[in-house]
């Protein structure tokens, strides 16, 4: 063959080496061009390996939010809505409720909104402008009012009441006409909100003390039937009643500027987006440690020598603002791992910053991260669950309750009993707010 030229000179060896090098170099370039080809075709499928758990967050578009706002408009409520003016600042009630109904009216999160005044047992539908007029004190005459259980019953008996969000704004002063009713307060409330028990609706309670101008009608009628107040603070409440996930959404997306006193019963969010974060992280602190990797839709780990630690992302934007706080979550979130041992690392719960979310695309679907440690895994497979158990009635309720409200104060007659009636509508313990699960596999 022509390439094999035999030159009888000492230089021939030298040239032969060159030839060898040239041929090998050609082979390399040939190979590298071959090997770069499958890169293109395989890259699409490779994502499945790197991103193991895909609980797609945006895939499930939430149900439309339908809201009915009920404002009790009786003589006892008039004092919250004095006719203001440039020289008179609005009451806390007017500020808070004015903002709430405006947000309800304009929020893009709400598909449909209706407004009602509760003057007697049957709520009266009114246009938004009229409700706003009432809140700003433009309407003078108020109705006699109805007793609390009847009002709640009337609201929950509205058509579709159990499929949508009902927002009830009232002072929740319950002074029954029949004295014997006092002994049955929790039961009367529980009966009046029977659909809450039957359909396991959620109830969110927000309380605030507001300045009050006008006639105050206490539940306890002695020594005086009514008092005229001039700016003393008395409480009013906003109850949000409806299917748990919708109440959660309304609370998180519409009633963002809620007062500090909050109580939630039966609140459940849709399963939040949740995933372990293993790869494509730039922050060293978030990277997993130990022998753990994503496989299928779970994790495979070996914790026999060393514990495995990894960061998980959660989207908790549907939780009430107070529950989104890292301190609250760190205190309440429970990690469960049957046949093993897992824990939430202290001080590891935190909110993601915008920079982190935009800088690291894997973090984009989540609002929070927390770090978990698995120190024992006895079975070949196990399921790790992250649960937020529902907190019981918060402590402020007791402080805001009184057995005698004849002297006005930021306390409500029998609030603890009224809310006990709400609490009794649910099983003990309260159902968890959310549960997310992560399958684990033992790596031999």
């Amino acid at each position: 063959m022509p390439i094999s030229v035999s030159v009888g000179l000492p230089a021939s060896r030298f040239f032969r080496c060159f030839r060898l090098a040239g041929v090998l170099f050609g082979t390399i370039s040939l190979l590298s061009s071959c090997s770069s080809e499958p890169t293109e075709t395989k890259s699409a499928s490779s994502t499945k390996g790197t991103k193991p758990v895909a609980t797609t967050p945006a895939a499930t578009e939430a149900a439309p939010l339908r809201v009915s706002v009920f404002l009790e408009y009786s003589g006892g409520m008039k004092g919250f809505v004095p006719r203001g003016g440039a020289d008179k600042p609005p009451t806390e009630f007017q500020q808070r409720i004015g903002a709430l109904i405006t947000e309800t009216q304009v929020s893009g999160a709400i598909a449909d909104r209706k407004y009602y005044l509760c003057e007697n047992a049957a709520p009266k539908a009114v246009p938004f402008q009229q409700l706003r007029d009432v809140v700003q004190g433009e309407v003078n005459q108020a109705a006699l009012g109805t007793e609390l259980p009847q009002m709640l019953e009337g609201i929950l008996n509205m058509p579709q009441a159990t499929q949508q969000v009902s927002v009830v704004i009232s002072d929740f002063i319950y002074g029954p006409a029949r004295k014997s009713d006092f002994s049955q307060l929790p039961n009367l409330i529980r009966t009046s909100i029977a659909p809450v028990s039957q359909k396991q609706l959620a109830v969110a309670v927000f309380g605030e003390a507001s300045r009050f101008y006008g006639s105050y009608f206490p539940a306890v009628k002695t020594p005086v039937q009514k008092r005229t107040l001039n700016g003393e603070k008395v409480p009013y409440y906003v109850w949000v009643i409806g299917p748990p996930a919708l109440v959660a959404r309304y609370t998180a997306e519409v009633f963002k500027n809620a007062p500090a006193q909050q109580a939630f019963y039966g609140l459940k969010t849709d399963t939040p987006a949740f995933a372990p974060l293993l790869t494509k992280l730039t922050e060293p602190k978030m990277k997993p440690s130990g022998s753990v990797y994503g496989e299928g839709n779970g994790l495979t780990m070996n914790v026999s020598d060393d514990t495995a630690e990894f960061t998980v992302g959660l989207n908790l934007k549907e939780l009430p603002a107070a529950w989104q706080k890292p301190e609250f979550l760190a205190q309440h979130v429970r990690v469960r791992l049957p046949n093993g041992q897992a824990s939430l690392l202290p001080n590891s719960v935190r909110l993601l910053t915008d920079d982190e979310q935009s800088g690291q695309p894997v973090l984009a679907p989540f609002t929070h991260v927390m770090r978990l440690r698995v120190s024992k895994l006895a079975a070949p497979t196990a399921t790790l669950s992250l649960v937020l158990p529902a907190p019981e009635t918060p402590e402020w309720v007791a402080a805001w309750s009184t057995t005698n409200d004849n002297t006005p104060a930021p306390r409500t007659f029998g609030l603890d009993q009224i809310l006990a009636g709400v609490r009794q509508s649910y099983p003990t313990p309260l159902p968890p707010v959310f549960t997310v699960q992560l399958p684990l596999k033992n790596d031999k």
Partner: protein
Amino acid sequence: MQTFFTSLYSSLISIFQSQRPADYGLYKTDLFSLVGWSTLGVALLLVVAFYYLFNSALRTGMFRTTHWVLTLALAAGLGTLLANTLSKSHGAESSSYLGYFMVVNMVVASLWFLLFSVLLKRWSTYARTTPFVGPF
């Protein structure tokens, strides 16, 4: 074959490092078999080139053990390179695990090269006894 490559590589790498990295799933599903096949192919190609192209079809005189060792070194180098570039291009993160994977693949490439040499050398015209005589 994927299981073969996975167990081959993961057991060899575990000599150096038993901890598995966060993106081990990627190695398991994609990289081990991809790199495994590529390395096998490269080793085979180099063996065929050495014995049948340069030492049968062509008479280049490159039949000495030195040439064979040089080609083996090339196979080993390509093995390291393949492990690195293919892994990186598929999204593997730089880690000690990837480093050991490169080392292991260097050895694996050399072993394939040796194996194919032994299997195929007897049909070569000029390099039948490179690097050693026998076994068949």
